[in-house]
């Protein structure tokens, strides 16, 4: 199925103030892959993510999601197939109740009331939050908010999931649950994160961004284990990949 593929070719983007956030980024993510995009602050991760669901338009180069090349005309189609989970769940949850928030996407794609209800309920069940359906989102814990934010995206039945720092602000148990959840998905997943230990556990492939360029792209073990590469780009070799000393 070709629509699960995300292909970025020579993507460049400069903000109006002249900051060049992306300077020719290329990669291709195929069906069902789980890819981490890592890099220091200001490496261009957020700018890249904003291109993947058509919030920013390529100034140069091309973003392809499935059969569509991203243009203002195809943005709606692209958004339908790419589910975007924002870094701050408070930005993502804006409706008065959890169920209404989860139903927002399907409701706006013109489904019937029954279908909307079914999709919203099954998305909530998928993330284990069905018991929260009538609660107002702002009263949930950080972990619950994150799970609900993911459900709001799942209910749109996207082919690709794009997530910005999904494990931030979570306690260890919440983070563990999130990782189990992410691992269980069959979607193509692109995850921007600083949580390298999480990357070790759930992402077989890693893309390193620095100063708007792809510095490395390959198997997670190889890249994360390369201490000098990691340090050069403002990163660190994850503790779990360090040599284990017998204590």
């Amino acid at each position: 199925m070709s629509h699960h593929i995300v292909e970025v070719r020579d993507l460049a983007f400069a903000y109006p103030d002249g900051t060049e956030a992306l300077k020719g980024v290329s990669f291709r993510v195929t069906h069902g892959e789980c890819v981490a995009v890592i890099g220091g602050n200001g490496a261009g991760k957020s700018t890249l993510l904003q291109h993947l669901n058509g919030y920013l338009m390529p100034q140069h180069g091309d973003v392809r999601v499935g059969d569509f090349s991203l243009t203002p005309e195809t943005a709606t189609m692209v958004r339908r197939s790419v589910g975007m989970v924002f870094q701050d769940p408070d930005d993502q949850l804006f409706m008065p109740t959890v169920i209404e928030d989860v139903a927002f996407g399907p409701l706006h794609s013109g489904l019937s009331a029954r279908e909307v209800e079914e999709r919203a309920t099954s998305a909530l069940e998928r993330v284990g939050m069905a018991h929260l359906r009538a609660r107002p989102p702002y009263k949930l814990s950080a972990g619950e908010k994150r799970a609900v934010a993911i459900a709001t995206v799942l209910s749109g039945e996207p082919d690709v999931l794009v997530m910005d720092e999904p494990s931030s602000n979570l306690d260890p148990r919440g983070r563990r649950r999130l990782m189990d959840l992410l691992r269980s998905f069959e979607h193509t997943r692109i995850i921007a994160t600083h949580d390298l230990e999480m990357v070790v556990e759930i992402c077989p492939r890693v893309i390193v961004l620095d100063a708007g360029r792809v510095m490395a792209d390959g198997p997670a073990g190889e890249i994360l284990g390369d201490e000098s590469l990691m340090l050069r780009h403002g990163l660190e070799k994850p503790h779990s990949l360090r040599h284990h000393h017998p204590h």
Partner: protein
Amino acid sequence: MSAGSATFLEVGRMDELARLDSPVHRLDARAQVLTAMAFILVVMSFPRYEVSALMPLFVYPVAVIAAGNLPVGVLLRKLAVAAPFALFVGIFNPLLDRHGVTTVGSFPVTGGWLSFSSIMVRFVLTVSAALILIACTGIHRLCAGLERLGMPNVFAVQLLFLYRYFFVVGDEGLRMRRSVEIRSTDTRSLGFRVYGHLIGHLLIRAMDRAQRIYRAMLARGFNGEIRVLQQTQPGWREAAYVAGWTAFFLVVRVWNLAEWLGGRLAGSGS
């Protein structure tokens, strides 16, 4: 962090009330909008010195509060928040309009005090009607209802966003105030310059956040159309609700029920 958002003007309370289930809540939003509009129009149409004839209109808010299981305390608090505005509108009337128009017992009442009382009564009536409307529909159903009644989509969406972002800005403001308080323990007043910076900063932060929320809405297919989960179709219950209340309002408008009732009681007493 969510403590701030929960306490700010009790943001969630109105939304929570809107989720209650009662015969009134189950009515189509359009019926409730029409009734509230008819009510407000009738209240506004009374002459400026009228007080007693307005009294029977309290039946409407009281009946809806009772039927809708709404907590009176919450509504009264919200009413109190808005009260200073009405007070300012009416406060000069007693000073400017000093000729006597009527007497209560042997005590002469000036036109100013009468119109001031009238303004306050109207304020309580209209604002409580608006609060009740929101508490029985919720802002989303309300906006969707307004739109289906023919309000241009642009206005309905504006109203929706005004409501949402009002709280977003308030929330940012609370957070900023907290950070200011933490760092200014020994100074009592901060001066205009600091407040100027704070307000400018608040605006930028609120706009940033609004931008992010909008992005999240776009990402999930928002296209400027308000859609709600529980679509209701108006039926005979809605028709009866609107017709019944409107008829009552008109009766109250045409005949002064309070005076009539007073006269009857006085008549039977003597």
